[in-house]
């Protein structure tokens, strides 16, 4: 079933649908209000309409998201949510609401940048309550126990993703890169219970000895262009872990202690996600996380997908790749863009990298 058909089904079941831009947001709160989030990362869209609003130096995620919206691709959504991820998304949200005059409600959410401080937690909690008030207007109030229920759904989904990742890292998953990312990225729009069923079914079907391949870790925003995972399969690369903003950087690898208060629990989950440039985490933390992924998966190197015009990522790649090299981990940095076809030059560089690995 396609994404839009699935989301129409959600609406028929009485839920609201939110189009959510990258990257980090309190999904549990949306679920608790009966809202199914559908994330907008790299939707299939051209360039025709967004060009009138955006300069050529804006990243593909923002461009394609706007294009998709303007061409009616998000008609199914009841409202839009813009987490404050970077300068470009900040302005996109404001542009869509204030100047393009999108008739659907546009909500904003600001993940604090001051690390795990107590002040950040307090501010985050206050914001969750503000967002909840907005959601109440759109989707109705929170029912008793709804947030606790949503937290349980979140735990279930995280456990299912973690299991899949752990299996892959241990060499126990007989799935291609394309199959793996297809399965995990379905969580971008599936209702959490459906996501868990889907992930479990995938795990069951694909449990088994990993296919041969050179084990690598991917770092970046998302696997782009859209045929990249498949092309890596073709080259004999087995992606065994990732630090991708869309996937591996959005769930904690180990279960977290959860505060009893559900609001604090939602805030704590967000603050405990793996280190990320978009929330202001430093290179040291990111390097430690990445090195841990390399170690736990036995990867032989890291490929950095440097997404064109993505400031948060591009700033840290030099130091982060340097930190990997300093640990003796081979790295490759390739510039990438959204689109459907991986350029031949990029594949040649990956091939050369594979040949150079010790």
């Amino acid at each position, binding site marked *: 079933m396609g994404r839009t058909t699935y989301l129409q089904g959600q609406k028929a079941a009485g839920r609201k649908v939110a189009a959510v831009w990258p990257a980090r947001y309190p999904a549990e709160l949306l679920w608790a209000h009966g809202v199914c989030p559908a994330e907008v990362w790299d939707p299939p869209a051209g360039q025709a309409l967004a060009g*009138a*609003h*955006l*300069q050529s*130096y*804006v990243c593909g995620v*923002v461009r394609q998201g706007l294009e998709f919206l303007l061409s009616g691709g998000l008609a199914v959504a009841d409202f839009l949510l813009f987490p*404050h991820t*970077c*300068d*470009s998304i*900040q*302005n*996109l*949200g*404001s*542009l869509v*609401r*204030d*100047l*393009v005059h999108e008739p659907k409600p546009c909500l*904003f959410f*600001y993940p*604090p*940048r*001051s690390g795990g*401080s107590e*002040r*950040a937690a*307090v*501010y985050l909690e*206050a*914001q969750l309550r*503000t967002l909840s008030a907005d959601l109440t207007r759109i989707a109705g109030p929170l029912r008793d126990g709804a947030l606790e229920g949503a937290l349980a759904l979140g735990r279930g989904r995280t456990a299912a993703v973690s299991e899949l990742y752990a299996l892959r890292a241990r060499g126990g998953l007989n799935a291609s890169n394309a199959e793996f990312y297809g399965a995990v990225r379905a969580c971008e729009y599936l209702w959490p219970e459906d996501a868990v069923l889907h992930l479990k079914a995938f795990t069951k079907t694909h449990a088994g000895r990993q296919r041969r391949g050179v084990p690598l870790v991917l770092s970046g925003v998302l696997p782009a262009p859209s045929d990249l995972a498949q092309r890596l399969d073709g080259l004999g690369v087995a992606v065994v872990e990732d630090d991708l903003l869309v996937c591996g950087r959005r769930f904690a690898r180990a279960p977290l202690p959860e505060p009893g208060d559900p609001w604090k629990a939602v805030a704590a989950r967000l603050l405990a996600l793996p280190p990320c*440039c*978009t929330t*202001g985490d*430093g*290179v*040291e933390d990111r390097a430690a996380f990445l090195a841990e992924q390399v170690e736990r998966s036995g990867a032989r190197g890291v490929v950095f997908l*440097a997404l*064109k*015009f993505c*400031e*948060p990522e*591009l*700033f*840290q*790649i*030099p*130091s982060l*790749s*340097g930190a990997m090299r300093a640990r003796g981990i081979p790295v490759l*940095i390739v510039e990438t863009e959204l689109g459907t076809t991986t350029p031949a030059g990029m594949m040649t560089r990956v091939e050369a990298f594979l040949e150079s690995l010790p």
Partner: protein
Amino acid sequence: MRVASELRFRWMKDVALPVLLKARERRPRERPRGESPLGPPLESTRSLKRLMTRHYALARYAEGARPVAWVTSGAPVELLRAFGCYTVYPENHAALCGARRMGPEICAHAEEAGFSRDLCSYARVDLGHALSGLTPVGRLPRPDVLFCTNNICQTILYWFKELSHGEGIPLVMLDTPFIASGEGTPEVFDYVAGQIKDAVPALERITGREFREDRFHDVLRSSIRASALWGDVLATMRHRPAPMTVFDAFVHLAPVVSLRGLPSCERYYEGLLAELQERVSRDVAAVPGERHRLMWDNIAIWFALAPLSRLFAEHGWAGVAGTYPNAWAETTHYLDLADPFGSLAKTYTLIFLNRGLDYRLGLMEAMGRDYQADGLVLHSARSCKPYSVGQYDLRQALAQRLGIKSVVLEGDMTDFRTWSEEQAKTRLTAFFESLDG
């Protein structure tokens, strides 16, 4: 060691530099002023040069004598001044590098180290300087602390984190949540004010100095006054003919950015304001025969400031307003000595770059009316996303609301590798003609 540094700093500040600067001023001007479509240059420009040259020259001797802080343009510098920090603004330094046409040369060092050419060129200049030492000001002092606020962009956060990581320098960061709509909530201001308060013990630790409240209050008072004076300076351009242009404003904003909170900054703007008021009283025009008045959006194209200023003047165009220079006069009215931390939080959170585009549109509309602008130039700065993304639609909306024509210039602040002077000239000339026609 500290005593020797202190003595050296004082000797330079009180004895050597004043003599050197005087001697420099006595030298004949290297380039006689040829035919120019511009009005008489501002006398205050000499004081400005003296002030900024002194600031950068003295910076070299500050190391060891004063705690040195590198600061972002939107940070509450008042707090640092209460610790007697010597402050350096990498953005101001990058603008200077841009104006001296050193941008690409310095950026290249950052790019060689792996920083993408698509990143903010202010950041690339700064990182390139850190790697190469290249600068038009001799040398910048090594910072003891980096002080950064993400109210102007998130880029600044990545950039300062990078500096902190690469050089092992402590970073004090204030997170100012984006105000998508409205006037901000108590929760936001409590969050920001709390972080400013937390910065006090952190700065005490780093600088080894005690926080002095009396000094803090003096600095705040001075900062309020300097920003108000700067606002008055800009307001003189409401007069027809304008006594200075937005291009002058770009140059003369350096003190309110870099020296805000110091008496020298106040004194400077007192002098500049007096000169401008005198010009207004005599109807001295920055652009003789001023026919049209325009508003400029975004940061200056530093490397092309002089040619653009001439080109505008040749066509009888006076740039009379700019969103960028206005930023340093925009929110200081929130500062309140009775609530220094809370009001600092408001002042620095509510700047226009940290607010939704509807706010920016309203601000530009009001500026357009106040300054009687009949044209708008939008500099689409390739490497500054927060300022540039949304400009195409702002342009349309302003055309509707103000009935003014506009032109977009694709450029950059410092990196002229993607800039074509000829193309810009052709585009602008066509724009000027469309207005005259």
